[in-house]
């Protein structure tokens, strides 16, 4: 308490310094409180209240949780989200790793840069634009995907309009968008590995596979864990791509948790139910991230 009083009425140089520091960070602190912490608290509180159309809120305990968590529509969108995640997360990370290793092998720096930029370009584009272009590629009649399928003698597919293929198709969009980002992170990490490690390993007679699994992969562990966490967050929050193309269709086959949250809140105005979903998204992301962090991040000290 006394400390805070001294900050308000500084006597000494140190106190003035402390106040200055606090004043420097104050705008950011206030902003984040207003825009993230207070709304988050409100989301959590709001999940216990039923909002009547006239704006009066009534405390209903866990009844909204009961309603949302027993709703098959909610669970099918959770399942869709997880399926999407299970397809696109490993694909992005493995492809990103492969591409960064390939890029790292290129001797010519200018070519490496050119290819890297091409991989990275989708990252700068809005998800809406990306999804719409892919929707055109996926067009069942005139799309390029079916043209390719026809060239190799496969039957045309309905892609985004097919219940089975819509999630893999959206996953391809996700991989396309995120691949460059992961590649860049891996490439930077690869370049920070001292070449001596490989030379020493080679002298000791390690073959290339051993060098990869015993040197490269362990040293990339922090980046891999971090990229997995970022991809997890990205895939958990899939909204733009789906909303701009299928709007969750066909028959809810591509409806993700966030799409459902958006529709619950802003189409059907069931704000309490939407708050329950918001809490669900927040808590599950938190738990999964902490678990991932806890179990997969090994301290690297070579």
């Amino acid at each position: 308490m006394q400390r805070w009083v001294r900050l308000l009425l500084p006597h000494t140089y140190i106190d003035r310094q402390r106040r200055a520091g606090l004043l420097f960070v104050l705008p950011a602190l206030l902003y984040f409180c207003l825009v993230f912490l207070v709304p988050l608290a409100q989301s959590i509180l709001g999940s216990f209240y039923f909002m009547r159309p006239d704006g009066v809120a009534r405390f209903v305990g866990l009844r909204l949780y009961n309603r949302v968590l027993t709703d098959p529509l909610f669970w099918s969108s959770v399942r869709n989200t997880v399926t999407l995640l299970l397809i696109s997360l490993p694909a992005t990370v493995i492809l990103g790793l492969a591409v960064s290793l390939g890029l790292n092998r290129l001797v010519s720096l200018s070519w490496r840069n050119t290819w890297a930029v091409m991989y990275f370009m989708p990252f700068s584009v809005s998800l809406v634009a990306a999804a719409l272009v892919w929707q055109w590629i996926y067009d069942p009649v005139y799309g390029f995907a079916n043209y390719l399928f026809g060239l190799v003698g496969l039957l045309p597919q309905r892609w985004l309009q097919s219940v089975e293929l819509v999630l893999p198709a959206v996953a391809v969009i996700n991989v396309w968008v995120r691949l460059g980002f992961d590649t860049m992170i891996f490439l930077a990490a690869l370049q920070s590995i001292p070449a001596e490690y490989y030379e020493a390993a080679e002298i000791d007679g390690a073959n290339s596979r051993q060098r990869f699994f015993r040197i490269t992969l362990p040293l990339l562990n922090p980046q891999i864990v971090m990229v997995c966490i970022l991809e997890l967050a990205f895939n958990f929050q899939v909204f733009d791509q789906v909303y701009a193309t299928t709007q969750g269709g066909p028959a809810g086959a591509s409806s993700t948790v966030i799409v459902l949250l958006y529709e619950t809140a802003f189409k059907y105005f069931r704000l309490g139910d939407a708050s329950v979903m918001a809490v669900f998204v927040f808590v599950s992301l938190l738990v999964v991230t902490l678990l991932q962090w806890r179990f997969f991040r090994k301290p690297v000290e070579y």
Partner: protein
Amino acid sequence: MAERVLPPSGASSKPRRSEAPSRWLSHPPVGPTFARWTAVLLVACGALTVFFPFFWMAVTSLKTVPEIQRVPLQILPDNWLNLANYREVFEREPFGRFLVNSALIASISALSSVVVSSLAGYGFAKFDFPGKSVFFFAIIGIIMVPFQSVVVPLYLWVNRLGLVDTYLGLLAPDLVSVFGVFLMRQTIEAVPGDYIDAARIDGCSEIGIFRRVILPTVKPALATLAIIKFMWAWNHFLWPLVVVSSTRMKVVTLGLTSFTNIYFIEFNLVTAAAVISVLPILIIFLTLQKWVVQAVVMSGLKG
């Protein structure tokens, strides 16, 4: 060190499943010629595949409806200078207005982010005050809060304050980002304390030190932050979708979706609109990619 990295020589001869194309995966940049050329080839093919949608978007935007519906599919447009689709995009929707809105939102968001983040970064990096680490980790912890979990209460606040369908309402959640505070703190921490002390001895005020010593030394980081924030704000979709209700307040991402409907999508117009919306950001990205890559790597290596 070698003992930890390498297996004992007995273990190395143990047969191992070789599912990975290990020749190619092995690290050092100079290897056998064959392996190197395989790597080049695969990387190039992948890059061209990733690039293809951009190419496809551009050529489709130059085609007429009969052209895009031609069977068998024709890759290149008949007339490379057919800009009718672009004209129609601007005629049907006030796309110029959307572009201005997007540019305005993205610029303000970049500017405010740079100012507030560098102030906070300086405070966190070079000062000591009660609760400093608690505050810092609280801010970093916000990365864990998905925007979607706060979107409903945020909308209710914006609504209560009468900011729905205004620029301020559009900007509200976009003014500062956690990434910015983090980036600026990391950068300013590396500024030598002697510079600051010297300025202080010369009688410079704290704000003066910030303006004359800190900001000039961290210019690259400021540029990085501004560019990345501009790109993010330009590409946002969910929040504008929630908060915008009139056509004249729409941003480009929203404008894009106005060419699609359930029954029929005129992809020649959609791709033209997509090119318009993507081009500014792509030009910025390609000219300043060094900074963008730096931002990504910063967020990657230190995260």
